[in-house]
Each structure stands twice: as C-alpha cells, then as structure tokens.
C-alpha cells in the first residue's frame, strides 16, 4: 500500500514538471556536454606533451579546441579529434599553466574542462671560458716582466639562459696558484687585468674565473699564466717615422731602446742599411750609435730603403726595427746651396755630424751631395757651387793660371762679371764704388748720379750703377752686351755662407781685393727697398755685404760695389 502511494507521487511529480515546461513553450536549455581535459600534471621545461580528452552527451561529431597561455605552443591539426601536442617554454622557476579543452557538438552545444600543467625548470650549467690576450714575440700565455695581462671571460655562455637577460649573471676571479698578482685587480668584471711582477725567476700562476648563470648555477675555468723572468724580457725599440730624402743627403737615425726589466740596461745598437734595387746601400755615420745618420746613396730612380736598428740588452735579448727611407734621385736644381757643410751646436761649429742638431743646412742640398760624391757638376767650385771661367771672348778657360773676365754659374745659368785687381783704371776693378741710380723701376726715386767723387773708371765720370752698366754694355764683356744689375736673389745666389773668413764668396772664381778686410763689402742689387719709404718714394735700395753675408737697404747715395750679371737659367750641354 505504501509502495503504491509513493509510486503515484513520483509519477505525479514527473508529469507535472514535464507537462508544465511543454505547456509554457520555453526553449529547452541544451544539456551540457561532459568534457574531460585530463588530470593535473608536472613536466620539464622545454619539453612536449601529448594531450587528449573526451566528451559525451552531445549530438553528432564534436569539434575540439585547446587553449592555454600564449607562451605554450599547441599543435592541433585535426579539430575532430582531441589529440594535440603541447610544447612548454624554458622557465627559471616552477610555473603553473591552465590548459583548457572546449568541445562543441553539431547542435552548438559546448562543454569545457581544464587541467593545471606545472612546468619545472631543468637548469643547464653555464660554460666558463677564459681568453688570454697574447703578446707578440712571446709564447702562448707567456708574459715578460712589467707587462699588462688581459684575461677575458666575456665569451662564457649559458645554453639555457632566458633570452631577455645576460647569459652570465656574475663573474668572480681568483688566483689559485703562484705568487699573488691580483691584489689590485677588479675581480667581479667579465675581464681581468693585472701587471706581471718584476722577478728574476720564471713562475707559473693559475687564475680561475667562476661564472654564475641567471638560475644560480656556476662553472669555473682556469688558465695557467707563465710569468717570465727579467732575463727573458725582450727590450723595446722605437726608430721614428719614415722619411724621404734626395741622393747624397743625410737623414737622422734615432733608436730609443728600453725594457721593463731593470737589469736589461745597458743596451747596444747596430744600424744596417738594406741593399736597394740598384745594388747600393746607404752609408751609416756611426753604426754603433743610437743617434747617427744615413747618407743616401746615388740612385738613378726612386728607391725605397730600410735602415734597420738591432738592439741587444745585457742578457743578450735582441730586437730589430726599421725606418723606411725613400731615396729620390737628384732633381733639377736651379738654386745654389749656401756653401755650409759644417755642423753647428748651440755654441760651436764643428766638422762632424751633430745628432742633437739634426736637420741643419749641412745635411741637405748641393753642398752635401758634393761631399757625398754624388753631385753631377759641369764645372768646379767650392762645395756644391758649380762655376766655369770665361775669357774675354766668352770661351771657357777653366784654369786659374789664365786670366778670366766672367764666371758662368752652371746651376743658376747666370753669367757674372769677374772683377779685376791689378789695373785701378780698368772699368771692372774690384774697388770701384758707385751710387745707386736707375731711370726706371726705381720706387719713384731714381737715385744719385754722383758727379763728384772719382771712385770709378766710367768715362763720363758719373760713378753710378746705371752709367757703369751702360758703358759696359757699349763696350761689351766676354762677348756679351746684355748685362744688368742683379736682383737680390741673384746676388745672394753666389754668397758662400760656409766660409769662416770673409769675403763670403768662392774666391777661386770671384777674387776680391785684399784691402777691404775691415770694411763692409756692399754690393748693389737693382731692387729699391719698400721699407722706410717716404711720401715721395723709395730712397733706399737693397745691397748685400760680402764681408758678413747680411743684406740691408742703403740710401741710394751710398758708395757701394756692383757686380753685373746676365742671362739666367739655361740648359748647358757639354
């Protein structure tokens, strides 16, 4: 009886419920699809995991969709199957991810389930590497005394470092064997510097670096460094910069030896010249001197040569270094050198080379080329001067026994009047003096005609430069009728600054009378002076004193000598 009653009640309840819904026309809410995504699990970083799932309660075929944190990669090719492959990234600590599976059936009903995936970091140890900056001239990892050693651990690496952080988090250097050398070094940088001690004994030390990665794991590398003793330290040598020079000229050679080893001194040196392509060598002034010179050989074409210095220290260690010298053949020279072949210091003048005063006049030019035996002279003459005597007809008489009236300068091409000494009435006599007078090109002051003093042999008695010039050109000298007063530069060309006693000219060609020793030997130029000019013009003209070598501008009324000149640079073919 009771059983029956409860059956009736149940029936009534079911009927009322179902009947009530259908009667109100409200759409049925679809029953959810039951989804199983899987159980929570733990896997290692950088690994893959096959995942699958199950669904029930839907209609027809299911479509499966996996979702997870973007750093996880899901390969899910066939969405009608729950099978997929999930890849996890590297992590530095235990990391939880939620992996969800959503399933949809043909009627659009969905179901969802998820599981927790815990990724565990698996750390690889960093690799420690030490690179040694090697020194040339010494073996691997060998260093002489007093040298700076550079060790570099910056190429150490960590294979599984996170991409957004430095691979190595920390460096720690220490010395594990040998006499301590790191006392003043910075020990926590990627590089290590230290200076080797000065010692007589060779010693091997060991230096280690500990590198730590971002996950706290460490590795160590070590290197053996051999500290050489003083006796194994090769000396240093500096020889200066490369230079260019002309044949026959001298260039300074300077070798500076040094060593980090205090007992390496004293040093010795040997200079040697290379042999050039023409088979010649430069002559070295004193090959055992640190400061000396090289004299460029005669060359017909430009030659590159090496001056090699080899030094040796007290232990017998040697080092060589070369300075390159470009030797040029003598170029077309149209200027006279000065005549100076002696070497000066600050307070003396000497015949020998002075290395502390390298680069002075005596090292260069025609005079040096003549002394070096490479000058190509047409005639003769002191030092680099190149003169030829001419007789009254203009013929060469290069013989001092014969009278000569003119001197040809084979370098400048100028032909000079030779002054005479014997006949005071000769118009060319050395002691005749003249005032300066020029009708033209005179700075608006023609000068002084000088009708007074009988100091010359000009026939009209007017002892001035222009009347003298006109008379010589009317008579002719050495067959020439085109004489003129020299310019400053022309007159200076025959000054012989190398003479130690006046007059400062090559007196084998330009004799001066002997009685002018105590007076200046002023010779006129044709150039008025621009200095000290008044409103009405230039009252002074340039003159050169062959007693002292100085030039000055003298008032045009001054009585001074004159040496006529003609021609100029010409090609002399003999």
């Amino acid at each position, binding site marked *: 009886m009771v059983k029956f009653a409860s059956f009736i009640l149940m029936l009534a309840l079911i009927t009322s419920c179902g009947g009530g819904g259908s009667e109100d026309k409200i759409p049925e809410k679809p029953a959810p699809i039951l989804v199983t995504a899987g159980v929570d699990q733990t896997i290692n970083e950088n690994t893959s995991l096959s995942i699958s799932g199950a669904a029930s309660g839907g209609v027809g075929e299911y479509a499966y969709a996996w979702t997870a944190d973007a750093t996880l990669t899901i390969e899910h090719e066939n969405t009608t199957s729950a099978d997929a492959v999930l890849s996890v990234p590297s992590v530095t600590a235990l990391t939880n991810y939620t992996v969800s599976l959503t399933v949809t059936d043909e009627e659009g009903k969905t179901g969802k389930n998820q599981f927790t995936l815990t990724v565990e970091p698996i750390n690889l140890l960093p690799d420690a590497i030490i690179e040694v900056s090697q020194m040339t001239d010494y073996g691997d990892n060998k260093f002489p005394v007093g040298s700076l050693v550079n060790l570099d651990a910056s190429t150490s690496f960590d294979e599984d470092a996170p991409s957004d952080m430095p691979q190595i988090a920390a460096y720690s250097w220490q010395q594990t064997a040998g006499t301590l050398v790191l006392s003043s070094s910075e020990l926590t940088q990627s590089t290590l510097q230290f200076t080797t001690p000065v010692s007589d004994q060779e010693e091997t030390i060991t230096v280690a670096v500990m590198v730590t990665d971002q996950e706290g794991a460490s590795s160590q590398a070590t290197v053996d460094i051999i500290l050489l003793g003083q006796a194994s330290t090769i000396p240093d040598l500096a020889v*200066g910069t490369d230079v260019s020079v002309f044949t026959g000229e001298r260039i*300074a050679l300077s070798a500076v030896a040094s060593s980090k080893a205090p007992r390496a001194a004293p040093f010795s040196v040997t200079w040697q010249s290379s042999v050039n392509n023409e088979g010649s060598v430069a002559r070295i002034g004193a090959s055992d001197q640190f400061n000396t010179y090289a004299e460029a050989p005669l060359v017909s074409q430009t030659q590159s040569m090496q001056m090699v210095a080899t030094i040796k220290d007290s232990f017998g260690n040697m080092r060589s270094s070369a300075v390159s010298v470009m030797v040029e053949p003598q170029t077309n020279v149209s200027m*006279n050198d000065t005549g100076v072949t002696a070497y000066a210091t600050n307070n003396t003048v000497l015949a020998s080379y002075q290395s502390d005063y390298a680069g002075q006049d005596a090292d260069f030019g025609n005079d040096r080329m003549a002394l070096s035996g490479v000058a190509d002279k047409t005639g003769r003459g002191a030092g680099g001067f190149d003169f030829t005597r001419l007789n009254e007809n203009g013929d060469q008489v290069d013989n001092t026994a014969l009278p000569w009236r003119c001197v040809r300068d084979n370098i400048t091409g100028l032909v000079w009047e030779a002054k005479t000494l014997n006949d005071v009435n000769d118009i060319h006599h050395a002691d005749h003096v003249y005032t300066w007078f020029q009708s033209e090109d005179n700075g608006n002051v023609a000068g002084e005609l000088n009708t007074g003093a009988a100091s010359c042999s000009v026939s009209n008695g007017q002892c001035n430069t222009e009347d003298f010039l006109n008379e010589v050109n009317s008579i002719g000298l050495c067959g020439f009728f085109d004489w003129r007063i020299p310019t*400053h530069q022309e007159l200076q060309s025959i000054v012989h600054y190398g003479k130690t006693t006046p007059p400062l000219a090559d007196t084998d060609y330009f004799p001066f009378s002997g009685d002018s020793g105590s007076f200046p030997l002023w010779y006129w130029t044709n150039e008025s*002076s621009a200095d000290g000019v008044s409103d009405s013009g230039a009252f002074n003209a340039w003159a050169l004193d062959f007693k002292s070598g100085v030039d000055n501008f003298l008032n045009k009324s001054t009585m001074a000598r004159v040496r006529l000149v003609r021609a100029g640079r010409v090609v002399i073919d003999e």
Partner: protein
Amino acid sequence: MSILFKRVFWVVCWAILAVVSQFVYAESTCPDGLENTIPDEDLVEYEGGEILHVPSNLVFMRCTIGQQWDGDTCIGDAEPYSWQQALALSVGYQFNEKNSWRLPNVKELAVIVERACVRPSISEDSFPKTPADDFWTSTPSMLDEQRAWSLTFTNGSSAIKAKDRDIFVRLVRTRLPNEPIE
C-alpha cells in the same frame, strides 16, 4: 647747398671706412712705384696648404708652424722656437701626407720674400697670417758660433740671431718630378 653738403658727407664717410678697413686687416704695405719681385705665376697652390715656388722648385707650407691650414686660410697662433727646437721639430715632420719637410736654408727662405711690400714682406694670398717677424733658417753662422741665420718678414732682410731666441718656423720641401708645376 644741401646737395654739396651731401656729397661732402659721403666722401668723408668713405674715407673713414677706407682708413678703418686698412687698420682692421693690417695688410702689408706695398709702396707705389715698386714692381712685385715675385710674379703671381711663380706661386702655385697645392692642395692641403702648400705653395710651390716655381723658379726654385721648392714647396713651402702656407702656414707658420703653430697655425693650421683650414682649407682657406691659416688659423691659430704661430709658435716661436729656439734654433735647436726648430731643427728638432723639422726632423720627420709629417704634413699633408709628405715626410720630406725640412727647415729652409737662408737662400731658400729668401725666395718667398716679396720685396715690393713690408709688414709682412710676403704674398698674403699665398702665405696668409704670416707674422711680420723673424723666422729661422737651417743655416748656422760660420763667423759667429752662437748665432744662426734668420729672415724677418718685416722687410725681408736676413740677419744672424742668437740660437736661444724663440722665433717662428716655416718648413719647406723640394718638389718631386711627378708633382705638377701649374
């Protein structure tokens, strides 16, 4: 009356301007009636601050040592040296990719003197900002062992000076056959 006054006013203005500009630029003085001793065609500009003096075949630095060539003129201050210092700096001097520079001798330095002008007695187009003052030559005096030859670009005169005096330096080199002459 007022037109005349205006004309006088302008003439006076121009005259003042002319005098002032002379003073500001301190150009060398070249008196009337003197021909240049160096024709323009004798000086040939090389790139990088060098000038070839054609007749002598010598190439000079356009600037005094201490100054720098800026492509247009010389800037900075010329620096004076003793004779020994001048020699020492000339040895191995590198400039404009040339290494044959040397101190000119007394005849060489004289070739760039423009004797038609004073203060300075040199072409200011070719050798801008040249001090109108003493320059060393490489030539020592044989007659006075304490002294060496110098040349002043005040007026172009050469004279011997005590070697411990600090004066200016301009270096020279010889033109090589492969370098242009125009």
